């Protein structure tokens, strides 16, 4: 409940627009709204107070402080998202994957053999075979292992919950009476989801790096093209790979946000997003559908491994970025069209 925050404060000053209905409903529950205000001002006094002052002084226009407003909105959104137990649990699970992989590889190779070396050769996630020689490869293996399902699922949960969750718990209308406007609220929601994408990827990468450094040696590494690069170069590439993985998740994030604007049930939005994700992954595996596969958002996800080639093979990385940009543009604008015209009843 406390999440409605300072945004409820300028309601009384807010002129006309679509807010009138919502304002009425806020007043109907004024008892609750008042307590919300009290709590929120304490929660974020730093940015909220001057913004309000400027709002009052600047009148209805209030543009000079708009950037601050968005940033404040984004910051409060981010804090709220990251404080959820659900989010923390997801990040915990993501951090546990490299630990499990690292320990499993350590145990399997305790007798000196190399991981992933079986008759068929191609078992296990990518880069598995090199982990024992260089702990840095655990970063790549962990990302390759989590990118198909775990990472996008976590993003789907956060994105799906973004709008529908608010609607479900009845806090969306309080948010909307804030003079920030729906577009800006949606942007703040998407920025929060994107930040979560980056954070989730970094959690996997950092956890993998820590486990890899702890259990296996570090040092110069061999790229998959067979050339050698220094550890520093390897770490730089690991950072770029984390960014490429983050970029791969942007499409899912936009899709989740769009689904989230369609329904008032947070659970339904999350389930739909994760369901769509799984469906797309399955479609990407069926050889007969190769004609549509290049347009599926997950098709070029593994292209991040191309950053480990020497020289880097950019073709598929560029295709991936282009595809994600198209998904963000299509579903982002669809979410905007839906959210800005939606009747908010809860």
């Amino acid at each position, binding site marked *: 409940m406390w999440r409605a925050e300072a945004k409820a404060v300028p309601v009384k000053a807010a002129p006309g627009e679509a807010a009138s209905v919502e304002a009425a409903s806020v007043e109907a529950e004024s008892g609750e709204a008042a307590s919300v205000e009290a709590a929120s001002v304490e929660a974020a006094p730093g940015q909220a107070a001057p913004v309000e002052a400027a709002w009052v002084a600047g009148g209805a226009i209030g543009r000079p402080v708009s950037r601050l407003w968005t940033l404040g909105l984004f910051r409060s959104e981010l804090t709220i998202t990251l404080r959820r137990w659900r989010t923390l649990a997801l990040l915990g699970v993501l951090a546990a994957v490299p630990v499990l992989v690292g320990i499993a590889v350590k145990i399997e190779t305790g007798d000196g053999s190399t991981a992933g070396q079986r008759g068929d050769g191609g078992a296990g996630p990518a880069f598995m075979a090199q982990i024992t020689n260089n702990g840095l490869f655990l970063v790549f293996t962990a990302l390759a292992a989590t990118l198909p399902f775990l990472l996008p699922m976590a993003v789907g949960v956060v994105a799906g919950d973004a709008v529908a969750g608010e609607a479900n718990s009845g806090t969306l209308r309080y948010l909307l009476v804030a003079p920030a406007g729906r577009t800006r609220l949606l942007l703040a929601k998407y920025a929060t989801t994107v930040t979560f994408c980056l954070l989730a990827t970094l959690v996997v990468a950092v956890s993998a790096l820590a486990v890899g450094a702890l259990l296996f040696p570090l040092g110069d590494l061999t790229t998959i093209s*067979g050339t*050698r690069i220094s550890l520093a170069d390897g770490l730089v590439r690991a950072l770029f790979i984390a960014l490429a993985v983050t970029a791969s998740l942007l499409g899912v994030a936009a899709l989740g946000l769009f689904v989230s604007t369609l329904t008032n049930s947070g659970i339904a939005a999350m389930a739909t997003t994760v369901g769509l994700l799984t469906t797309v992954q399955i479609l990407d595996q069926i050889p007969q559908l190769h004609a549509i596969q290049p347009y599926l958002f997950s098709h070029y996800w593994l292209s991040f491994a191309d950053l480990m080639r020497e020289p880097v093979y950019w*073709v598929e990385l560029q295709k991936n970025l282009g595809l994600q940009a198209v998904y963000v543009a299509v579903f982002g604008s669809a979410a905007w069209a839906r959210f800005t015209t939606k009747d908010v009843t809860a």
Partner: protein
Amino acid sequence: MAPYASDDSTPAGKADDLRVGRRKAVRYIVPVTVIGVAAATIGLVPALADSGDPDLPKITAQQLIEKIAASDVQQLSGTVKITTDLGLPDLGGLESGLLSGATGATGDDGGSSADPSAKLTELASGTHTLRVAADGPDRQKLSLLENAAEYSLIHNGKDVWGYDSASNEVYHSTVEQGTEAAEPVPTTPKDLTDEALKAVDDTTSVTVDGTVQVAGRDAYKLLVKPKQSGSTVGAISVAVDARTGLPLKFTLTPASGGAAVVDAGFTQVSFAKPGAATFDFTPPKGAKVTEEDGADAAAEAPAPSKGDLEGDFAKDLAGLDVLGDGWTSVATFDSGGEGMPSSGDLPDAGGLGGFLGSFGDKVDGKFGSGTVFSTRLVNALVTDDGKVYVGAVTKDALVKAANTGK
């Protein structure tokens, strides 16, 4: 309900609703437009990028062939896309099992997944992306790009390294300094073109078929066609770089029509000297290294049977006879106990033979009876008494050859 209903029926309310409804609908134009722009971009960009055939001075087929022969490209790096569609039945893992069984190169015991002959056999079907780099006769590199992995074949001085990053296995053999390391399978457009031009004689028509752009470079198109009927080869088209004479694209279309059997072309090429580090290779720590010992290397490496795409088979088929000449020549040999297993001569492989037989057609002729195995390019006739006839010819031509050869 009633008061609201009457409210709605007022003209003002209606107009408002309409206006609001229209405004809502207008917003959805944005995502629809975005989809349209994206679709148009995907559809139009390749068409716009195709800047038409370049204008080049006229050249005769003879001059063009000489240009290819005189081509002396020592330094290059680029990306090659190769698509092969031999029309082999898709056997999945079994196929590679059979192929590697035929080459005797791999197996669970002692075989290395980094062995070049085993690895490059993968090129026989599907689409693959290769990277090539060369710096003089002593230093070459060929990489087969795979999903999150790569297979590299590196020749540097007297060392030949094969590195399979997926399994972290290394293959090592040595060649004499100064000799060009032979690849077990022709992979680049140049290799393929050299093979095709070997077959050029009076049974072949060679023409220059206009110009084309490949990998951003102006090129002449050389069209090689068999004059004889009975060949499964429809035409071979080679795009030759106008400046360097290097073949940039090789396309083999079957006589039966349809998609190309082999289509290999540069998607990107540069004639700058590749970085020296490209050819440096030290086996990574912990990698399993398979050494090819000298005797084996002498027997296997310098004898690449490039005669046809199924060259790996031909390796086992020393002492084979050739019937006919030119494009309709048919190779024949007595399978005895080796080569392709057939139900006829390998009773103990009955299960496998019967299985293979299900892919073939039964034929009868003066030679007796046998089974024809067809692909889109190469047909093979295995007679019941164990003789095998193989050629890039039609089924009828194969039976005719068997009849006359008897």
